């Protein structure tokens, strides 16, 4: 344990010297990514002298940046002064970043492989409401990081919200979920393997393109020649390719998810929830209950078969909504959902839910745009280009889209409760969303020309973590819900 004066956050503190190493490693990774084709060529064809200059550029760049990062380490300090956390950094150009303590919203720790070796963590401090100030320290020893977190949490509520400080300080932690090997396997199986296949395909093609520009050879052609001679038809080649790709992506996602979610622990803390996970890079994310805007869980057919859900907690974002702080817990089971649900929305089991569905116009419009129009366009295109092979596909498209949209429409339900809103939606992936009325920042009623003609409207509820949209409600109902939400948000003051 370090002595107490070393943990005095009112005086300028430095990061752990490991920060230099981290900055350098990031720098070299960046340089390597930029210059690897040059390096490759350099290794393969050392005679092309024009490349020497590029290599020199890389060497000089890395030298200069190394010196710069070492110097900036010695010029960086953080400290607390007059209710603000201040970070000063920079050597030639000094910058000063300050964050009011009571604006601090989340404090998260991350550990990469290097962090774990040196027993340090990177600290990220996020705020809301203020214009996108985000505060990050690359390396702090674990003790100091925890001391800093406790210090900031205890200081945060000073003066204004005393009750909250007590809540924050309560240390009770309860592990809601700890994923075992079989859970990891299940989560791995139920990931979206097609997405990985797509990424792999894109990466592979990009890589081949890079090689081509470097080697000056058409790699596709060579591949086709050498591989293609083994197969009689293109079809067989394609089939084998697709199967191999899917197999690789299946095992790839399996391994990646296992690494990412290794030893995942979902913890109920005094003030909210916390998720820790990771084999090589340890992640820790926390959300205080007060900052959770809405919660959503969903399950696609495979997950339903395994009895598993993936849960997302939508937290208040910084001013910039692109930087949303959403916490995702893959592989939750019913008990965890219930724990989160009752914590976020107490009393939702009592009192009656009133269920409403959108207007049937929603189904008509979606069927028109996703079913009829694409089918007609495809059919016409097939006829014009005299490519008759795909005509049956477009013929079948209409009825399939009808069935699909019908199911989506039927499963879309809006539940209203004195405390909040519940959405049930989806056909393949069934999702449930809960929003408490108090979390609404504003309400909009939006009407397209079609909606104006048919007396329907879309109601958007704006929260600090994005919008929740209730599409194609009868206008009267949309207005009624809006008036009710406003009454709920404003009524507290009455």
């Amino acid at each position, binding site marked *: 344990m370090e002595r107490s004066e070393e943990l005095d956050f009112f005086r300028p503190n430095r990061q752990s010297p490991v920060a230099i190493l981290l900055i350098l490693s990031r720098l070299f990774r960046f340089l390597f990514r930029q210059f690897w084709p040059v390096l490759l060529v350099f290794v393969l064809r050392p005679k092309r002298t024009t490349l020497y200059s590029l290599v020199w550029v890389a060497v000089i760049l890395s030298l200069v940046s190394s010196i710069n990062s070492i110097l900036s380490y010695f010029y960086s300090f953080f400290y607390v002064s007059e209710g603000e956390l201040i970070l000063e950094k920079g050597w030639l150009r000094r910058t000063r970043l300050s964050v009011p303590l009571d604006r601090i919203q989340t404090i998260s720790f991350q550990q990469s492989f290097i962090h774990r070796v040196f027993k340090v963590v990177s600290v990220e401090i996020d705020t*809301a*409401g203020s214009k996108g100030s985000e505060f990050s320290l690359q390396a702090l020893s674990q003790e100091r990081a925890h001391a800093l977190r406790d210090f900031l949490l205890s200081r945060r509520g000073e003066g204004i919200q005393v009750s909250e400080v007590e809540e924050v300080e309560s240390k009770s932690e309860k592990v809601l979920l700890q994923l075992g090997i079989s859970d990891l396997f299940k989560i791995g199986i139920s990931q979206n393997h097609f997405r990985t296949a797509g990424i792999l395909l894109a990466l592979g093609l990009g890589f081949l393109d890079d090689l081509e520009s470097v080697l000056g050879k058409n790699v596709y052609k060579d591949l086709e020649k050498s591989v293609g001679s083994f197969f009689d038809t293109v079809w067989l080649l394609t089939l084998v390719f697709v199967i191999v790709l899917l197999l690789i992506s299946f095992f790839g996602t399996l391994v990646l998810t296992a690494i990412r979610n290794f030893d995942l622990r979902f913890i109920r803390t005094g003030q909210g929830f916390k998720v820790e996970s990771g084999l090589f890079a340890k992640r820790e994310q926390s959300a205080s209950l007060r900052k959770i805007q809405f919660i959503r869980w969903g399950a696609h057919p495979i997950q339903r078969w395994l009895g598993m859900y993936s849960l997302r907690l939508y937290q*208040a*974002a910084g*001013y910039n*909504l692109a930087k949303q702080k959403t916490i995702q817990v893959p592989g939750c089971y019913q008990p965890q959902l219930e724990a989160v649900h009752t914590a976020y929305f107490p009393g939702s089991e009592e*009192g*009656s839910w*009133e269920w*409403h569905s959108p207007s049937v116009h929603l189904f008509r419009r979606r069927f028109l745009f996703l079913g009829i129009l694409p089918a007609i366009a495809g059919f016409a295109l097939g006829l014009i280009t005299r490519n008759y092979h795909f005509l049956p596909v477009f013929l079948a498209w209409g009825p399939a889209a009808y069935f699909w949209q019908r199911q989506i429409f039927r499963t879309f339900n809006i539940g*209203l409760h*004195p405390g909040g809103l519940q959405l049930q939606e989806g056909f393949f992936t069934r999702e449930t969303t809960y929003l408490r009325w108090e979390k*609404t*920042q*504003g*309400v*909009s*009623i*939006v*009407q*397209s*020309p079609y909606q*104006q003609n048919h007396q329907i409207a879309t109601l*958007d509820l*704006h*929260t*600090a973590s*994005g*919008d929740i949209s209730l599409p194609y409600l009868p206008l009267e*109902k949309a*207005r*009624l*819900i*809006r*008036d*009710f939400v*406003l*009454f709920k*948000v*404003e009524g*507290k*003051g009455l």
Partner: protein
Amino acid sequence: MIFENQQVPVSELPHVEEVSFHPLAPNALKARLLSSGLISGGFALLGMSILPPVFSGLWWLGVLIVLAATSLLLAGSRWLIKKRFEWEGYALRSHDIIHRHGYFWRIQTTVPYARVQHVEIGQGPIAKRFGISTIRVFTAGGSNSDLNISGIIPEEANRIKSYIIHKTEVDGEV
């Protein structure tokens, strides 16, 4: 009917539809027409510098096309701006502020004072000439729930701003 289980019957909920919306200052329409005219003028200049030289021998045809396109653009935007101006409006109630805008797509956004983060008044160069300002109301809900009412007389904008700030303090305390 919905919400019959509430202490407050639906009929007693305050309805947004009962409020009357303030139109924007008439100068706002002029300012918008002027800026759309400037944009159309820019397009015309750009078109004039490209099309007639490309058409070389038939340069007069190029000029004609640019003139026709510009007048179409001008007429179309003039019509849309007028229609939008007619529908746009704002209303201040005791607990929230309402802004409605759009023409084809009509949007009506309500922000409770209790959720307002801060209020800003701005004035661009054209708006300055016409003596109007823009009032922006920011919430934590991001750009979709922020209000941006452009075309209010500065004194009124200031009054609205201080009213909202006062109400935010009162409503936000509880």
